[in-house]
């Protein structure tokens, strides 16, 4: 677990809940969006870096498991880790917990490609980033 980072913490607003009385699935995506942006600085991709070097990430694949509903007012936090990478992609494992009960509510594997934001083309990571990814990669295999 030591290579997982806390990447999101919040609570479930009433405005995020649907007629089933729980957080609608689209807002799990919002948690993932925040969490991915929390992971990027860990590999050197701070907001400044992304802006200045015009290199970013684009999600291309996502697997989801919804394991426990979140109700209005529930507290939640997400931890994330690098499940894998290639010279042009990273795959991140996200786990969203109900913070009050510590029960796993949702997990997701997201693969994102590294791309040039001006050319809109996929490009390879540099050696420094690949080295950082290797140091952060989870030691266990992850599958959903």
């Amino acid at each position, binding site marked *: 677990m030591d290579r997982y980072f*806390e*990447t*999101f*913490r*919040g*609570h479930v*607003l*009433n*405005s995020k*809940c649907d007629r089933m009385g729980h957080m609608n699935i689209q807002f799990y995506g919002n948690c993932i*969006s*925040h969490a991915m*942006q*929390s992971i990027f*600085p860990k590999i050197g991709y*701070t*907001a400044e870096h*992304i*802006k200045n070097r015009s290199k970013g990430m684009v999600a291309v694949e996502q697997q989801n498991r919804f394991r426990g509903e979140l*109700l*209005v*007012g*529930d*507290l939640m*936090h997400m931890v994330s880790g690098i499940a894998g990478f290639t010279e042009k992609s990273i795959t991140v494992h996200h786990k969203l917990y109900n*913070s*009050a009960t510590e029960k796993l509510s949702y997990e997701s594997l997201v693969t994102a490609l590294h791309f040039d934001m001006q050319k809109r083309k996929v490009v390879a990571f540099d050696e420094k980033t690949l080295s950082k990814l290797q140091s952060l990669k989870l030691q266990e295999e992850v599958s959903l």
Partner: protein
Amino acid sequence: MSHTSSKLIAGYRGTVDTWECDQMKHMNVQFYSSRASASLAHLLNALGLSPARIREERRALKYRDLRIQYMAEMHVGAQMYGVSGVRAVKEDSIQAFTHLYNAVDDTLSSVSEFNLVYQDLDNGEILNTPLDVLEAAKKLEDPHEDLYCPAPIKSVVMAAKKMEHMFETSRSAVDVWECDAFGNIEISNIIARFSDAASHIMGSVGITRAMQRERNLGSAALDYYTEFLRPIRMADSLVLKSGLLDRRPKNFAFGHHLINCDTDEIVNCTTVIGCYFDMTARKSVPLPPEYSSVPDEKLLKNQL
């Protein structure tokens, strides 16, 4: 995160989204409040007020008054985290705080200092805080002298009484999606109304949007003090009346009364101190000369 203590509760972590940034090119004040609300919810859980308990009992600790200071701009993509703690358990309230930081360099971005009272969430009645919650609060109680605490506000503070020279800056109903599960407006949607009102007050001073653009001027809130006087409920009809409370060489002070149109009661009374800044240098500048032209008798401070 360098701010760790067994008496500090982790309450928020996330990123500034593009749609949270306003024409001043920084995160709008309402979104600090939504983050602070998340952090407060985590603090309440630490005090024994879990979400499940709050849903069942329909009672919780709510802001009675709230001081917010904005210390550093947050721009799109910035990483943030927040912590909350209890400073003091008082006879009639619990004094607590939330600090929001830039996660990249631990810069303090915003501070909320507040007093909490235990309320019935359906009617706003103030009740005795349950003993187990008070005991939990005492265990977390710590003056946190190593953490920043705002000095008393550097301005005259608005009073919740009818005044001359206040004018309408917003008129609305409280929408369903602005409320929590108990039909009470979320604080961020109150702050949003004050944020929108700023342009109207500036307009009354004689500063148009075009003038601000020509002068490369932005404006920013620095300090809020707000008192929650009555519940603001779903579908309530609201009017916001505002005015220029005071002016100083580099700061303006705005006064706001949020009024329930059905009852004519002032439900929220707020003081906002702010400044103008150079949009390129991101540094504060003296108030535009138009502020000097406002007759002194029109300043709300003269009616306090």
